């Protein structure tokens, strides 16, 4: 999509290494991946009328041009029930950012995704094969057990289903341990939106270096990208 391409180029030109979270989510949304409804505010006290359209509970997140992991610097607060709670959370985030010497541009206030199972979908440019995507379950499954599956882009629906079935923890998605089964169709759709023939990654492969959708929260009926990072390719010296 031409406008997405322009957005990515603009971010790259401005020297950013990653898209702002709100922009990353807008990009995902344009390719059909559901994201929480949200608004960006400049100061904690703006958490009044400007979030009146959103349904609680809310999440508040640090907006910063620096490509750090927000949660590592106290930049994420969740399960906020009221605008006042959002205000307080934003103030805490601002204090924490100052303590870590992180530049603050504002706050992203989002509706919380419906409860579900956290999965991770990612993308990388492999040295040998180019754009490739990854699937895994969130938390320890990805980070400690490295229980993930990869495919080279583009993938088709069969590939997407095999990616899901291939991880060792696949049974958890089917409703193990008393949990309801999650929507496999929603995960397949998200994988195709990212890594399919007409997906986000192949369409903008020369501008995107890595993608993490972590987590994608999958419920029995759908999937929402609760956090997303799109890391940009370093700008070529000749490209101006």
């Amino acid at each position: 999509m031409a406008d997405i391409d322009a957005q990515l180029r603009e971010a790259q030109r401005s020297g950013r290494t990653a898209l702002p979270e709100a922009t990353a989510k807008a990009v995902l949304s344009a390719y059909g991946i559901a994201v929480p409804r949200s608004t960006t505010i400049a100061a904690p006290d703006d958490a009044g009328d400007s979030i009146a359209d959103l349904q609680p509970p809310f999440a508040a997140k640090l907006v910063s041009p620096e490509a750090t992991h927000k949660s590592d610097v106290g930049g994420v607060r969740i399960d906020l029930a009221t605008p006042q709670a959002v205000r307080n959370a934003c103030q805490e985030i601002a204090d924490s950012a100052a303590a870590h010497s992180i530049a603050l541009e504002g706050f992203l206030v989002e509706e919380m995704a419906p409860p579900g199972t956290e999965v991770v979908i990612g993308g990388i440019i492999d040295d040998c094969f180019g754009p490739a995507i990854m699937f895994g379950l969130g938390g320890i499954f990805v980070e400690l057990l490295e229980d993930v599956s990869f495919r080279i882009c583009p993938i088709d629906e069969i590939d997407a289903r095999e990616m899901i079935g291939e991880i060792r923890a696949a049974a958890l998605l089917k409703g193990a341990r008393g949990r309801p089964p999650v929507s496999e169709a929603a995960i397949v759709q998200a994988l195709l939106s990212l890594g399919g023939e007409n997906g986000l990654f192949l369409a903008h492969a020369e501008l995107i270096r890595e993608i993490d959708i972590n987590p994608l929260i999958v419920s029995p009926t759908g999937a929402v990208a609760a956090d997303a990072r799109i890391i940009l390719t370093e700008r070529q010296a000749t490209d101006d």
Partner: protein
Amino acid sequence: MTSPHTCFDALFRPNTIAVFGASTAGRGFANDFIQATLKLGFTGEIYPIHPNATEIEGLKAYPTLDATPSPIDYAFIGIGARHIPAILAAANGRVKFAQVISSGFGEMADGGKALEAELVRAAHAGGMRLLGPNCLGTYSPGGRISYDRGTDGIVGPVGIISQSGGLTRDLLRRGGRRGIRYSAVLSMGNCADLSPSDMLEHFLDDPGTTVIGMYLEHIRDGRRFFEILRAAKARKPVVVLKGGRTQEGSRAAVSHTGALAGDDRMWTALARQTGSILVDTLEQMLDQLLILQHLTPNADKPTHSIALFGNGGGTGVLATDLFARNGLSVPRASDRTFATLKAMELPPGTSLDNPYDTPSGTLKVEDGLVAETLLREIVENESLDAMVVHINMPQFLNPNDRDRDVFGNLVRAAIRVREESVGKTHFVLVLRSDGEPEIEARKFEERNRALEMGVPVFDELPNAAVALAGLRDYEHYLNRRRGGT
């Protein structure tokens, strides 16, 4: 270049060959190539090129490339690296393919990469395509050319692309002795010009090749390689042995995804997406090529249900575990089969259930012909995807059995029942030897007999299990992709 198929005829079926680097002393790669090629009965012209010799290996030698009577289809070049670019650049369109055996190019730290780039430019300036450098040569039994004297020259269906020359000798010699027959074996070395992708395209199109094997280390055009395999939809099985899969990623990753990516995961992904069969060792590669050479994949019913039949109780029990670990099932016999076998009143110790443990005393009934009845009953009554017959040979080849050929009868029984079940049940034979020379000799003989009748023969049950699992993966891929489900 014209279409790939006609294009590569000059390489695989050359009429005229120039050889650089052969000497009157008769040693070295270039002399080996001439000798091996003459041994296969090459009927075209070979022109040794040598600055002052008049005759090499009994062939008239020429001082320079432009002095040869006819243009060259294939040039085999084994002289000092520095001298080669000038020779290729001056070829003036008289050479179609040059295979540079010599080392001293991109694999060298000092200036090798620059010399390799110069070599490619020279080859193109001279109007030819280049194989190598830093490789061993091309074996094409159909074209009667070989760089290895240990080849049998028998034309077969397996095409090999290898980035290691030494491994091609293993494939040719060990594979040949195991019964693998090649359409061509290409040692491609540094792949400075023609790449594994180019040759993969050729083998996919070549009607004489039905199974493709590749040993790969570095793929420069990975994207294209993937696209070729993807577009091929596994219409021919491709077995990939990839070296260097445990190497750490070369670049620093920012994301979780980047930190988890790596060569091993990417090649696994490639195999799953394209139906290629990834193997871990040369031994597995030989087993996989052998089974694919002989058995026709059954896309309608991927291999799952296996019967194990043979002598050696513990062997059968261990094999059952191993087949299960590879996702294959060794199901209990049906009541009907159980009853039928029971009614035969076989000697005590015979298992009437799968795994069918038939001690040597049982298999010696009717001098081994009892096996035919048993196998037929099992194959007809059970819904099996594969029958694995394993024979512990020394039990049947001791001096007391000299007057009767129980072992031969067992092999023939398997072959006959297999013929009745073609298209329904895969048949695999495991001939277990103790390494004693007399037993090995007999094994070689019976193995060739079985192979000629379309039955692949393995050394041990684990080899058969892994090869059948690879076949199963390939069949599954065809099955899933065919219906688009």
